């Protein structure tokens, strides 16, 4: 076999962004080489890792995906001083992601809310944050392609759609609500809120794209055991059959530029710490919103003293997420979550309004995780045994619920990823992130989101409400390679092409100029498909 040292297009990362672009390029006839830092494992292994894990650590997704020494990612077990992510600032940017072939969609919930037209024009409409480089109608056709590509199910009734402005139907109908969601929806209605079906990358009752229908294992996070939920691993075999080369356990540590300041090659360490160089005509960095800026900063050279693609000094800045607060509610009457997928409905209308000139909007959801895993330890602590213990676990499973308020956050240059002095197993710098969710989001919690959430809890008949003391992270990494039309204030252009390097593309969440309140993956993929079109046409001209 010929050693794989070059291709038309080199893609760093095998997550959803990388595989979607890879398939577009393969279908257009280009050779594609993908480089993955972590291992490639079977779904069987991941499923069993999780099932073998003790109940006490099942909430830590990394138990299903133990990191390899050369490709560390955050785990629940690490001590702060040894942690892969070195966190600073008033709020924790404690993200979860995995460095495995297939990327972090392995453990996403599949939630796929589009942005609204208003979400992309915060500055013009409300005088805060940034406007996008283009409007919603420009992105809309890419949303449609994303929905068909990933197999996103959703309602046909415009009153149940978010947003209703769309040019094509969902490829599959929405999933039915669990008993708890049915109740929650009725209660929300009494307060004037519309709890609508989550549009989600999950095969709703029918097979789609050669993957089976959802059979309601309710362990979408950390892994769909049957691949009914889209994850990028499901594409890897297909990409290889179409001719892609996928290198795994290969950690890219440098992006190399030439005299024209075009990208010439990338270098990676294998698991034996040996360095290899891969050349190509065009490069795509698709290795996650933290790893992309880290790699660009690590690759600084004489021509690019702040790092590759960083003449604007915006690489690693504007780190964003969806800061969330959780209300754990105990009710008198049973609700019963857990039938169907773990996230299955939500109130989105509360993310919109003129109040956004003052504070963030929020999206509320009733989590549909089966509760037994969360309540068992509390039942045990009561000293119960035998049938009494069973009865208490059953009661708490039925009569507790998590209501989550997920907020938007504004891009802030001070929320910044830099290179830590601490290094990982390969000797590469760990990412260091300063993070402050900001007054805009804090104010929402004070005057808007928590008051609404408390009213909902009250309407649910809560006899006890516990509110998370601090903002938690949603693991929706955005902003570190922000998009804009002005090369002086942004890293990539409207096609996710680096302003500084015509043959370097950095698509995905890093490019997002605002967060809205809904999960970011569908927008990341829409941007990836848009970038893929641009790459195909650029390669044709090459």
């Amino acid at each position, binding site marked *: 076999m010929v050693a794989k040292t070059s291709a038309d297009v080199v893609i760093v990362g095998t997550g959803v962004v990388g595989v979607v672009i890879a398939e577009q390029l393969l279908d257009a006839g280009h050779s594609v080489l993908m480089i993955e830092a972590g291992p490639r494992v*079977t*779904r*069987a*292994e991941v*499923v*069993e*890792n999780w*099932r*073998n894990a003790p109940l006490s650590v099942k909430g830590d997704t990394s138990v299903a995906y133990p990191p390899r020494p050369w490709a560390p990612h955050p785990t629940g077990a690490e001590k702060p001083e040894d942690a892969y992510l070195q966190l600073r600032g008033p709020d924790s940017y404690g993200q979860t992601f995995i460095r495995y072939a297939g990327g972090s969609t392995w453990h996403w919930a599949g939630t796929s809310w589009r942005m609204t037209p208003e979400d992309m024009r915060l500055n013009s409409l409300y005088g805060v944050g940034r406007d996008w480089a283009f409007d919603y109608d420009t992105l809309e056709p890419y949303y449609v392609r994303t929905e068909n590509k990933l197999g996103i199910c959703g309602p046909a009734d415009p009153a149940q759609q978010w947003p209703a402005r769309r040019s094509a139907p969902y490829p599959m109908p929405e999933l039915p609500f669990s008993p708890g969601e049915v109740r929650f929806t009725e209660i929300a209605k009494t307060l004037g809120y519309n709890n609508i079906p989550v549009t989600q990358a999950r095969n709703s*009752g*029918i*097979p789609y*794209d*050669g*993957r*089976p*229908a959802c*059979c309601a*294992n309710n362990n979408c996070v950390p892994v769909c*055991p*049957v*691949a009914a939920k889209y994850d990028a691993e*499901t594409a890897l*075999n*297909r990409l290889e*059959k179409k001719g892609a080369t996928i290198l795994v356990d290969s950690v890219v540590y440098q992006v190399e530029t030439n005299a024209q300041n075009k990208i010439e090659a990338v270098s990676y360490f294998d698991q034996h710490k040996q360095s290899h160089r891969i050349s190509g005509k065009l490069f795509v960095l698709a290795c996650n919103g933290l790893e992309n800026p880290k790699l660009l900063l690590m690759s600084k050279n004489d021509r690019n003293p702040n790092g590759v693609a960083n003449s604007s000094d915006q690489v690693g800045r504007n780190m964003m997420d969806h800061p969330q607060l959780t209300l754990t509610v105990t009710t008198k009457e049973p609700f019963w979550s857990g039938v169907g997928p773990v996230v299955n409905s939500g109130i989105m209308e509360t993310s919109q309004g003129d109040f956004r000139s003052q504070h963030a909007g929020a999206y509320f959801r009733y989590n549909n995780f089966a509760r037994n895993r969360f309540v068992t330890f509390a039942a045990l602590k009561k000293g119960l045994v035998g049938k009494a213990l069973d009865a208490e676990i059953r009661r708490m499973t039925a009569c507790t619920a998590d209501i989550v308020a997920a907020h938007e956050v504004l891009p802030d240059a001070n929320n910044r990823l830099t290179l830590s002095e601490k290094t990982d197993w390969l000797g590469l710098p760990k990412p260091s992130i300063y993070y402050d969710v900001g007054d805009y989001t804090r104010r929402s919690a004070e005057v808007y989101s928590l008051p609404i959430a408390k009213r909902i809890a009250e309407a649910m008949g809560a006899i006890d409400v516990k509110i998370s003391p601090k903002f938690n992270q949603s693991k929706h990494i955005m902003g570190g390679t922000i998009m804009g039309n002005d090369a002086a204030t942004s890293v990539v252009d409207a096609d996710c092409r680096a302003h500084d390097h015509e043959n370097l593309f950095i698509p995905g969440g890093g490019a997002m100029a605002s967060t809205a309140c809904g999960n970011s993956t569908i927008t990341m993929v829409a941007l990836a498909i848009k970038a893929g079109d641009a790459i195909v046409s650029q390669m044709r001209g090459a």
Partner: protein
Amino acid sequence: MKFIQSLAVIAPLALAPTLMPAVVSAQEYSKGLIDKGRYLATASDCVACHTNHAGGKPMAGGLAMASPVGTIVSTNITPSKAFGIGNYSEPEFADAVRKGVRADGANLYPAMPYVSYAVMSDDDIHALYAYFMQGVEPVDEKAPDTSLPFPMNIRASMMGWNMLFRPSGPLADDPKQSAEWNRGRYLAEGAAHCSTCHTPRGALMQEQKSRHLSGGQVGAWYAPDITNDKVHGIGSWSQEDLVTYLKTGRLDHRAQAAGSMAEAISYSFQHLTEADLNAIATYVRSVPSSDPTAVSSMTRFDRGEADNNLSGFRGKGFAAGIKGDHSGAQIFTANCASCHGFNAQGTTDGYYPSLFHNAATAGDNSVNLISAILNGVDRHTQDGHVFMPPFGDEANAVVSLDNVQVASLANYILRDYGNIKLTVNPEDVQVVRDGGPRSNIVTLARIGIAAGAVVLVAVLLLVGLLVRGRRKVADLKST
């Protein structure tokens, strides 16, 4: 329609008057006749083979089908004049369907079940012809050619085969049987061509009539015994059971259609009338086994029970589980239990079948168990789209299990849920992975030809020597 008709008349005249068939379908057939033909085409399941289901147009051919003698590609049977059967006269069409002879005189391979269709009546052939000429959209696309290995590529070799194995014509009704039985036999032996798969084949790939419907290998799948034997056949099924199975492709806690039978249910049986399904069931349930089981024992539909082996490996880690004595159970839990249940109990609605009380796991051989694992199940019925993903080499395999893993998994399922007497080894898995056992007919034919060639060479040598001897004489004479 008129446009097509006028083309039908003009094209042969204008382009190749000498090739103009004796009768071209100048007349317009009635809707009733075309509909009758459509129904018969459905009963004959033409579309299953003559359509490339990965995006091809109906009846336009192009489906590659593995056969024991090599890959056969189905032909375009739309009324396209350039690439289909648009120039066929009705007698030519009848000969293709019932005798396996193309309009140009070449023989079809019996992958086309003309051996069964041979019993179809002239009236039904007429209706089928009307449908194919005027009820099917012409598709002007060429289906790829079939190229079988030597000597099977010599189509004339089928002439002798036909003399031996092709029935002479329609079946006469059996006056001792009911009209329903006779109708059922006509459909089952003809259009529905049950015996094409369910009757074992002999050394020359002919159906072994003495073992009618007693089970046969079909590519990567095994078409089981459907005689009325209580143990090995489906003698334990009621009339309603069989009709339900033909309509839906499944009988809960007994059997599910996969492979070619899933296609037959999806494209054909579920669309037949209640009366015809009952007729087919009446007849099939009367077909005796050539080797009936003397003593009643457990059937393949009631072996096994709910069980699991989790305590053997849970908590020890996947790497340990996959290596140990419980590897099959570990593979089952990791890959199968999420749908079929930790006890292999399936779901109450039957969408996910139990793996005990299941013909696929408890049959007389393990072919369908292995094939279901490697190829999955794909069936469209009024109940919806039943789909089990594959675990073989496919792009959409949930996990690509290797031969050792499939064997280990299959042995766990057989031991705990199915036919405990069976054992699968990795070589068995490879055979199914390759699309089923290859017929040795090609090898035999080649040996036969080689043997013939040796004789021929010997004769030629002898002749050559004689000639040379004569030449020598002549040479001598000339010098």
